[in-house]
């Protein structure tokens, strides 16, 4: 990684090859000709920091993005909710990991103290005296304000922060400015800390570029998960629940531009849970066909509503709650498509195929009142089957014998799908019953036609 043509960070392989921070581009090429060199992009670093900060909003609304790629957050109020500091740290580590970066985390009673400890490595300090001890042992270069005077302090024989603190305050203030003393006082808890906490945008729309051109929808999931983590942070910080999200997959731009593939994720039960959203998206992506390679993913929360507090009933229903059922339905819809997950919404129509209406489970079509005690077969065929005639009798596997009186259904003249049918229950030789109808002969065709329409399941 280079900044202004100088090496800033080098990985293990590069270090083994002899690359050192501060080297020029030419020097690196001489040492290892096939080293990959990247220019540092401060904007993208800042974006990444913001992404992580969004994800961490799940744990506390007080998250601040500070200097030197550090995020400071106040979790004091959230400790009990998440079950202690260790658990919070673990969960935070998971969130950061799913965004795809590594982290060094420190805990301290003061924000500035945690900032300084995180600079050197991970360290968990809960009490003021031990914080002081740990801070005193840090090399003084961790403090930003001390770095310009590094040579000078080294000349004084200072190595650690404790040495600097023993110097007279008045002199330090005069030579190094008031900022240094303020920073140290904040770190040691001697003066109050003020942070500019992250301000939440009123809407959420995040985009991430994929590491490579991706051809399979499933492979996008990793990057999409990163967006979901951020969105969940944003949702829980505002105590909102998601009802509708839009995912758009961006393809090639420029001369061979392809329209982005967009799909909606609709939720019956508003949610702010990460796992559920990831699972839904996984199934939805598995069903998506990509017209071209994907370069970037954008996730937009298109509609949200205030989250409901969790139920605190003493005896939760062991056999799955309504929420579980809604979650199940969403999952099924995501995999099978809304046209394959249906509920019955019968209409009042005389024609059996019209009366028996099935609608997608999430549609808001109303079921109309049913006639009670109307004997009908359990199964209807999609299309009535025309029956063969043998000896003037309808034949389906075996000759059918009519065993009931006819029921005349004549309707549909108003929507030009008129039916004129006489329905009978017929019994086959094996004693199974069928619901068959005879189309009443019209003037044109005198032939009597029988159809099989239903089975008595």
């Amino acid at each position, binding site marked *: 990684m280079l900044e202004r043509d100088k090496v800033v960070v080098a990985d293990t392989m590069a270090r083994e090859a002899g690359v050192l921070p501060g080297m020029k581009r030419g020097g690196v090429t001489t040492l290892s000709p096939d080293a990959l060199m990247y220019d540092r992009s401060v904007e993208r670093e800042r974006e990444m920091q913001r992404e992580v900060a969004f994800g961490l909003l799940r744990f506390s609304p007080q998250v601040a993005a500070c200097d030197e790629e550090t995020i400071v957050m106040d979790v004091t109020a959230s400790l009990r909710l998440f079950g202690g500091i260790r658990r919070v740290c673990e969960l935070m580590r998971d969130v950061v990991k799913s965004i795809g970066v590594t982290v060094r985390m420190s805990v301290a009673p003061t924000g500035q103290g945690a900032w300084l400890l995180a600079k050197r490595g991970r360290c968990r300090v809960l009490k003021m005296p031990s914080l002081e001890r740990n801070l005193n042992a840090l090399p003084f270069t961790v403090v930003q304000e001390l770095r310009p005077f590094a040579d000078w302090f080294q000349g004084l024989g200072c190595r650690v922060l404790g040495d600097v603190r023993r110097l007279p305050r008045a002199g330090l203030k005069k030579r190094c400015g008031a900022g240094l003393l303020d920073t140290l006082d904040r770190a040691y808890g001697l003066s109050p800390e003020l942070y500019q906490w992250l301000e939440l945008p009123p809407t959420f729309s995040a985009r991430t570029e994929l590491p490579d051109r991706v051809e399979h929808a499933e492979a996008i999931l990793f990057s999409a998960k990163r967006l979901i983590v951020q969105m969940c942070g944003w949702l829980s910080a505002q105590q909102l629940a998601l009802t509708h999200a839009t995912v758009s997959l961006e393809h090639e731009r420029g001369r061979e531009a392809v329209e982005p593939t967009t799909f909606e994720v609709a939720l019956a039960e508003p949610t702010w849970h990460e796992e559920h959203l990831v699972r839904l998206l996984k199934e939805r992506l598995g069903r998506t066909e990509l017209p071209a390679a994907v370069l970037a993913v954008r996730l937009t929360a298109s509609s949200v509503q205030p989250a409901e507090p969790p139920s605190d009933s003493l005896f939760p229903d062991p056999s799955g709650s309504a929420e579980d059922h809604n979650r199940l339905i969403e999952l099924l819809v995501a995999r099978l498509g809304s046209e394959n*997950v249906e509920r019955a919404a019968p209409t009042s129509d005389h024609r059996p195929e019209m009366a028996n209406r099935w609608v997608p489970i999430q549609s808001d079509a109303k079921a109309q009142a049913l006639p009670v005690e109307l004997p009908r077969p359990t199964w209807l065929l999609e299309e009535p089957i025309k029956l063969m005639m043998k000896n003037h009798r309808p034949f389906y596997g075996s000759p059918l014998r009519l065993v009931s009186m006819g029921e005349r259904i004549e309707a549909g003249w108003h929507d030009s799908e008129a039916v004129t049918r006489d329905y009978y229950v017929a019994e086959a030789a094996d*004693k199974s019953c069928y619901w068959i109808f005879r189309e009443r002969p019209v003037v044109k065709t005198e032939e009597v036609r029988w159809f099989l329409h239903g089975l*008595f399941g």
Partner: protein
Amino acid sequence: MAALPQHVESIHPALWRGAQLARVHGRTVDTGYAALSAELPNGGWPLGALVELLVQQPGIGEMRLMKPALAELSARPIALLQPPHVPNSLAFSYLGVPVERLMRLRAPKTADALWCAERVLQAASCGALIFWQQHIRTEALRRLHLAAQASEMLLVLIRPLASAQDASPAALRLGVRPADGGLVVDVVKRRGPIRSEMLSITLQPSPILLSPYGRVRRHLPSPAFAGGVPSEVVASH
């Protein structure tokens, strides 16, 4: 060797003699047909186990056979996975299963259908899952059975009669053929003694309400229960 106690089955609830029906731990739901209930362990369809119904063809009365159980379980949704034809919601309401509880799932592929069944069982939010599948591998059956054991749901797998030959981990397997006025049930597998003779069951309600010959073919005096054909229907025609 100490003499065995006279009642071996009193040692442990999971123990039964070969000539006895098992006393299953889990809950069961009454079949609604006394003749059938008497032949099943604990007197009903087992919940939280795989039940196989082997039918000659769909539409011979298998839904009416399950109807009393479905009506009882209909406090929670009932999922119909891969039904062979369009389920007629009016008929379900006639059978006493509330229409708003029905959920029809169609899966384009067998893998999707199995995934679906497993999810429904895992969520455990439905009362019953009825699953139609022509061909199913033994591993998939075992997986379904395991998923069912983790839930308190009625899981009925409806398969062709020909698959009675194949081994299955199901707790209960019934072969079903149509017969005059109802069904004959062949108990293929149960936790209990082998039953060689067929069981004849008169299904309620019969589709034949009115005969053209003026003879009302209502059913033999089988015990009446809620949801049967009330006499007004017959009278009103």
